[in-house]
């Protein structure tokens, strides 16, 4: 599933074998290198940084353009630059799934991706789940079952569970408890909503079936 040609924060660390992030990096995502105006002198074509460079992608169905530094994570770009704060920052290192978004339909920890990784791709955050202000069945079931307390893990939970429902959409039968539990294994919740999250997703899947 991972696009190996794209930069990921984890891959970058692995590649350079140290936690020192390089000042400039090459973006090799197909079809994007040419249209990137960089403000930094003496860069080879396709290189960006360290100053902000133009990034274009689709966010919740709308085309967005924003200038971000190569070191900025997708999570920070969403929250700081695009004021899309429904996606939460909790651990900032891939341990809790609070920052889960869908990139081209696949759930990813946005804290573990660099913003420039999503050049030309589509990103869906929790704000993009509802259709024109109408909550999805899953969102409604979360509310009905009280699958949220403080609500800080909720966006990530919803993204993981939406992805599960999407993955299994064609099946026509309800999900099992184990399937839901598996889907949210990486989503930490400190308030203890797991039982109600599971009930909500099962209910949503029944409605679908």
């Amino acid at each position, binding site marked *: 599933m991972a696009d190996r040609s794209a930069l990921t924060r984890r891959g970058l660390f692995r590649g350079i074998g140290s936690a020192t992030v390089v000042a400039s990096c090459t973006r090799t995502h197909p079809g994007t290198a040419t249209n990137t105006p960089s403000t930094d002198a003496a860069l080879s074509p396709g290189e960006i940084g360290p100053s902000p460079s133009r990034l274009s992608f689709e966010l919740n169905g709308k085309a967005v353009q924003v200038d971000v*530094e190569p*070191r*900025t994570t997708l999570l*920070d770009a969403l*929250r*700081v630059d695009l*004021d*899309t*704060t*429904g*996606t*939460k*920052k*909790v*651990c*900032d*290192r*891939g*341990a*809790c799934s*609070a920052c889960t978004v869908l990139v081209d339909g696949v759930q990813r920890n946005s804290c573990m991706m660099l913003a420039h990784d999503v050049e030309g791709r589509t990103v869906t*955050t*929790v*704000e993009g*789940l*509802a259709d024109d202000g109408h*909550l999805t069945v899953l*969102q409604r079931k*979360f*509310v*009905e079952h*009280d699958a*949220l*307390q*403080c*609500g*800080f*893990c*909720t*966006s990530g939970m*919803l993204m993981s569970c939406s992805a599960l429902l999407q993955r299994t959409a064609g099946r026509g039968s309800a999900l099992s408890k184990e399937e*839901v*539990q*598996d889907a*949210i*294994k*990486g*989503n*930490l*919740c*400190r*308030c*203890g*909503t*797991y*039982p*109600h*999250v*599971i009930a909500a997703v099962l209910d949503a899947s029944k409605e679908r079936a």
Partner: protein
Amino acid sequence: MAKTEIKVGFGDQVKAVSVELPKGEAKPWDADAQLEVVGKPIPRRDGALKVSGRAKYTYDVNLPGMLYAAVVRSPLPAAKVVSVDTSAAEKIAGVKAVVQVAEKGDAVLFAGQDVAAVVAERPEQAWQAARAVKVEYEQRRFVTRLAFAATPDAPLVHRGAVEERRTEGHVTEGGGGDAQGNKRPLRPMKKGDVSKGLKGATVHEAVYETQVQTHSALETHGIVARWDDDEHLTVWASTQSIFSVRDELAEVFDLKPTNVRVHTDYLGGGFGAKFGASAPGSRLGTIAARLAKQTGAPVKLMCDRHEEQVCTGNRPDSIQTVKVAGKGTALTAIEVQSIGTAGIGTGAGVGRNAFAVYTKCPNILVDSSDVFTNAGPGTAMRAPGHPQGAFAFELALDELATKLGVDPIELRLANDEHPVRLWQFEEGAKRFDWKAKRAESKRLREGKARIRRGCGVAASIWGDFGRPKAAVVTCSVLRDGSVEIRNGVQDIGTGIPTVLAQIGAEVFTRPLDTIIVRYGDSELGSSVGSGGSQTTSSVTPAVRNACEDAKEKFIEHVAELLGAKPADVSWANDGTLSAGGASITFAQACKKIPGESITATADRPATYGNHPMPFLGAPMPQIAGVQFAEVEVDTWTGVVRAKHVLAMHDCGRVMNRLTCTSQVNGGVILGTSYALMEQRVMDHDVGRMLNPNLESYKICGAADTPEIEVVLTDVYTGANNTGAAGIGEPSTIPTAAALACAVFDALGEPVRRLPMTPSRVLAALGAVPAPKGLG
């Protein structure tokens, strides 16, 4: 004051008592009250905002021109600051200011202490600048190991007086004597004479250890500060106590409290660590406001996860020597000697399970001490002291029961006096199928099966700490037909605004969606902190009084419209108001309100009842709870799985069965996590936490969670006019204890250290050598 008769009690144990109601107090909703909205399982009202990502938490506040701060923290556990060089940090692009928080010569007492702070245009720049601040230290001797810190050879952690942090709503054991070295005794809890009780009795004595647990709220501590002018400060704070943030900032910056405005619209958890403008181990609020003043721009300062783990509080650990003695089924003596470390802070007591649950025992001594270490300060955490005390004592009790040859429930029933808890033990044993399950675990144990099962039970004790006068609530009937309730309380995640709306809907017999609740803002009337499980019990009675008063005024207005006496106005459930043949709808009557609204403001008097049993002799009810737990243990790998927890709890009159159940689930899951997974791991050689994150500091996930069955026992206490009591803390007290008892049942051997990791389970079975202790 007139006497009013009310019905108190629970289940079929209801009786009439007469209470003296303070002036202006609404008659309590007692056992006879038939309520339509209060108590029902109503989904929280901000649910839609939270599931659509539109709820703005402190972390989400983005103000125009806002700058981002970061704190430079000491990597050393004990040192003297020799010099701070900010020049390199200042040169980093986007950096607006770099300030020293510790001055030359200041002492550093733990790894993670504030030393300097930076502020920049973007968060990445701030982090980069924080790394570029060069601090030179002179290292000092330090101690992070609890047992060593308590010895005379250990380096002294505090050289001067110790500043004591008290958390609102948490009754701490308090200082009981002079410090000796790093050790500072807490006030002992004592009755009778333990040595007498030991004579001729069967005695069990053992040492129990618990770990340091961190709060790990998902939203880290943080604050956004904006100066509106030199005299006015507005902040958004991730806090459990809006008004303590206000007062602290007012004091630090010498402002009038009313000139400091605090917003907490949504809060990503707290669990006891988020009182005040600063975190227990970091002056976040002061730093943010200082940087905002210096730069003339709003400043956001949020902890990262590492900081959250090391300097924002924790549950202290403990080493407890428990002695318990009995004859037949009668407990004759209980003695607990305990030490624990709250790092550089205080508060390592062990709660009240040993002292105040099994009250038929005539001789009890609980003696505990704080031991200072060079680690981040402990602070109140969901039922401070209690889970650790409950674990040690309830497991010791089961070990004694084995020696006495009695069933653990029988022993508890014979020594507890709380009528609700007694009912919970008996009823729970039936629901849980206790006898059959214990027989099955015995069969597996004796057959030396690889996969064993076991069950255990433990008690919860808490007090109804509802506070008088603290919450001031305004209720207005508006011309558009809605009813508005205002109070500056914050929602830590329990759903308190929903409960307040339910009270309004009940009093006015109006649809829930016509009740507006405004909260989370210091300008909406003073309120309590969300701690001590006191919010619902402190705020709902004030809401009810305000609503009843506004309703009375509204009826006067209606009477005037109908040309009748207020006493003759009748109020139908559909909102029709009639008197002497004339009638008017609620909406019509509202439209005719002169001015904007009919408004009343009220508070809550002191608690005036304590049925069915007082809390440690205090004029407040004792909240009862019992949890049953079932585990499965793989004796080859040592892995314990929590299978099932039956949580039976009293929280007075249940206000909302849905959100209340959520809270109990949360208590059980936190307790399971504490029992099986979580622990702060210190590197005692360098004095730093080794797992300051969420990948190696393990918290309970969905797959680790047991099946949870919640039974809420409505208890009519006559303590306040809504009958609400707390549930947040009581629901986490007995979980780890019940699980430990269940593991003992499964193995026939106790695991006397938390968390019950595979290596400790295998050691208990004698399969591997015992891992080294905390000391």
